[in-house]
């Protein structure tokens, strides 16, 4: 373990991390909530943060590791700048959600139905149903919903994010240029 890790990683804005852990009074039942908050702050679960959670909340590190790997939302690896959630709920599936994810994978050159691009621009994370079944297939990029996506307009949506331009919501059937 490096020196910095021993000190729980100085780069982690310690004060912030501390306040996240303390927010839930270190109650053991708040472990999942605490990890969710840490992930939303740092975009993933840094190892040093988990070590600190173990110490402050008095929970064995192996238990924290088992929780962090059991629940799908947690990532132990740094994630990309933009998070793409592709809905793979049943309604989106029967409307062709599988083809959307295939197309995104192809565009981003990702091997699996998930993962981060080499340039750390995008992380693809499929989710099981966002409950927007009327608008399927749905993808969410950085918390913005795009409905009625077709393989054809995937490229267009991704391009807007990778260009870093302000993105206007693309709605399949209503997007006149699609």
């Amino acid at each position, binding site marked *: 373990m490096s020196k910095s890790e021993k000190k729980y990683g100085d780069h982690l804005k310690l004060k912030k991390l501390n306040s996240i852990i303390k927010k839930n009074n270190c109650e053991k*039942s708040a472990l*999942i909530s605490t990890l969710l908050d840490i992930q939303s702050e740092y975009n993933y679960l840094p190892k040093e943060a988990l070590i600190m959670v173990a110490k402050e909340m008095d929970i064995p590190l192996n238990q924290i590791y088992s929780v962090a790997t059991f629940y*799908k939302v947690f990532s132990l690896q740094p994630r990309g700048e933009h998070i793409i959630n592709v809905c793979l709920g049943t309604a989106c599936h029967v*409307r062709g959600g599988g083809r959307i994810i*295939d197309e995104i994978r192809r565009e981003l050159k990702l091997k699996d139905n998930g993962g981060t691009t080499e340039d750390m621009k995008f992380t693809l994370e499929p*989710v099981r*149903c966002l409950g927007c*079944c*009327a608008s399927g297939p*749905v993808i969410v990029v950085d918390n913005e919903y795009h409905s009625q996506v077709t393989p054809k307009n995937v490229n267009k949506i991704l391009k807007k994010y990778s260009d870093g331009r302000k993105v206007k919501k693309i709605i399949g059937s209503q997007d006149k240029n699609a």
Partner: protein
Amino acid sequence: MKDIDKFKQKLSRIRKSKAEESNRPCIIVSSGTCGEARGSKEVFLALKNVIKKYKLGKKVDIRLTGCHGFCQVEPIIIIHPENIFYQSVQPEDAEEIISETIINKNIIDHLLFKDPNNGKKIKLEKDIPFYKKQNKLLLKNNASIDPFKIEDYIGIGGYSAILKVLSKMKPEKVIDTIKESGIRGRGGAGFPTGIKWSIAGKTEGKKKYIVCNADEGDPGAYMDRSILEGNPHSVLEGMMIGANAIGAREGFIYIRYEYPLAVTTIDAAIKQAKKYRLLGKNILGTGFDFDIKIVRGAGAFVCGEETALMASIEGKKGEPRQRPPFPAERGIWNKPTNINNVETWANVPLIINNGAKWYSKIGTKGSKGTKIFSLVGKINNTGLVEVPMGISLKEMIYDIGGGIPENKNFKAIQTGGPSGGCIPKELLDLPIDYDELASVGSIMGSGGMVVMDEDTCMVDVAKYFLSFLEEESCGKCLTCREGIERMLEIVERITEKEGKKEDIETLKELGEVVKDASMCQLGQTAPNPVLSTLKYFENEYLAHIREKKCPAKVCRALISFKILKDVCNGCGACRIACPEKAISGEKKKLHSIDRKKCIKCGICFETCKFDAIDKRAGSD
């Protein structure tokens, strides 16, 4: 004067002022997650700006509410007091809505709903076919209250049930009322709620817990989300009544992190209820202590199973454990715990206010009350539907759902999520009822209904659910962990042109073993999608295995694309669109697809405006 009497007066004051407000014109913008996805917030802001422009701020109210159910035509707005229903509203319509409808009292024709059957324009929500057969006991309030305002809930009679309980009903009486109402758990298994409560009530224990299960993990189902987003106080009130009856002092709401808006609304509702002293210590001076905490899930389907959910609340990984002991005896931290689903809790205040008799008149012999379904998939009117139990699948699909888009043929309806099954068209007269659905190999589940048409491949559907369950199995039981994986391998092989004739028998046998030998409901019901598709659609499996064809033209290895020589005019659109550069041809001349390069993504098929590309069952 007692605290409780003071509170009663406060409620009547709020109701009086709300009643006065209701005479003013009010624009209601439906804005659940689904509405937001289609731009309801933008519509709201545009309307607000126009109201400001015309200086109407003091004369016209505008309100964001939860989902109204008819997701297909979102963004929806309703204009009170006339109840004018406008659909598919865009921000650019705001000017016209204010100047024409609000100021000049004219109806805007192009925003009205058009009945697809006769082309007539419909002005009021209640006249729209989608709503006609519904009985919206729970969902109707979504269309009138601002979920962030407790006063709105009080205005429609909210919190009178808990007042009734605290002032004149003993816990036994409350439990008896719930028992007599006949309500069964809305989460999936359909256990009678009153019996659950009475066991938890009778179990000795200083500390007891109640839980609201909002881990709505079934893909294609979002009833619970809609209640939490649209009317969170109804759930809180139900939980208060339950806690008081059972003797619990602490409650948890376990909610998926995938529902950020619902987390926000329920969190705000708890804070407001605390302000009104409806939560906390010595509630309204009656000596009743009760508090509610929110616990967010983190993306694990199995946590909807109650023992796994409890482990997750304790901060552990969500692995189920053996029952008995049931949660009512040994639940969270080994204390008696009562768990009900969101929709069940939301029904409780209704039952207390109107009585068990009233409630038990709705529905069938074994299934009482109304049930909310999410009607999704290949259906014209997608949305949330609240109907009395006992309505037939046919009425659901054709009268409410408006049938299948593009006049395609109906194939099956999938109920109960990954634990449920697919029901074919021969059984469409089946009444929707816990026992009837179970009798045909499916389940009620939490209320997801996914409609499938001729373009849906049933082998692919089975593969979809198996891959879902394989990922979601916690891995504790061998049969579930390994059995589902083996079944998935077989089905994958079938869809990849490698099916063998013995596969069907092996699938059936494996399915029965996984069913019999797994510990929790996830494993016990996991083979349902495969077994029910095998039962009703064996022919499709056989076509994949013997003829190496996918009749619905879905499974990539078993389809092919061909450009029709008499139709292709050589416009080149497909050639440009093809991501693999598999299409070649000179301008204005017949194009062709290079089979070796083609990945069968179907983009050419979608791009061609002249129907010159033929999608075929069979790979050659």
